[in-house]
């Protein structure tokens, strides 16, 4: 009976295993957080460039654009988390991009909201 080490593997298995084990790696987790905060910045910028109805009108409706904003960046973070294997090497080589990317894009989104309160 073959042991785990001797078990024959198909050519597809290593890639699948890398994809699975990589989900909890620091590279992938931090990359997902970086993409989420960058997309949050871009979505807010899009709102600044294309302002919607006046705030009083938005307030009267049940729709809350801020929640939609958060959901879009959350979906982007999940996509980056699941499918960001090809960026693992980049993140490993440039960890400072993670730290500064998250900090700067988050603060920049807050600053945008201060100067262009479009929600």
């Amino acid at each position, binding site marked *: 009976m073959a042991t785990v080490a001797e078990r024959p593997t198909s050519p597809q298995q290593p890639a699948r295993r890398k994809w699975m084990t990589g989900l909890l790696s620091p590279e992938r987790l931090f990359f997902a957080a970086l993409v989420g905060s960058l997309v*949050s910045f871009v979505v807010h910028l899009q709102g600044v460039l294309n302002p919607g109805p006046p*705030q009083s009108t938005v307030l009267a409706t049940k729709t809350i654009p*801020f929640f939609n904003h958060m959901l879009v960046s959350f979906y982007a973070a999940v996509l980056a988390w699941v499918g960001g294997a090809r960026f693992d090497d980049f993140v490993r080589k440039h*960890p400072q991009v993670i730290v500064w990317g998250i900090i700067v894009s988050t603060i920049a989104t*807050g600053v945008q909201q201060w100067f262009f309160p479009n929600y």
Partner: protein
Amino acid sequence: MTRTLVLLHGMAAALALASAIHMYFMLPKRRIPPRGVALGFLLTMVPLYVLGWWTYPEFRTEIRFDLLTSAPWLANIFDVKEFLSWGALMAGLAVGVLSMQRKRLDEVWRRVSVSLMGFIIFVLAFNTVVGILLANHKML
């Protein structure tokens, strides 16, 4: 009811701030991050964000409308707080899930985790102050 939830939200913020500071000082000391501290941090973040999400719609319709005329700076700074907390949540989840695994972290990832925890502490402290300002303004 909402007043009670907001009060609980404020208490959860103080707890999350305390657990984030604990995590910040524990991470550089241990090669394998302490799972209990990470779990405590994640568990305090959950009620904080759930309560915030729950009470936000009522804040928009009942409080923010008045704020835009009586104290627009406070309405704006409160919105800034919301965006900062969203960025801090994603960074906090990454650090928390990583620290829960009881894996020996490379020095570089330990430094990234500590730096991000510093940022999360800054955001939580800023948000707590803004929340207290709003509570005082509306005499909750």
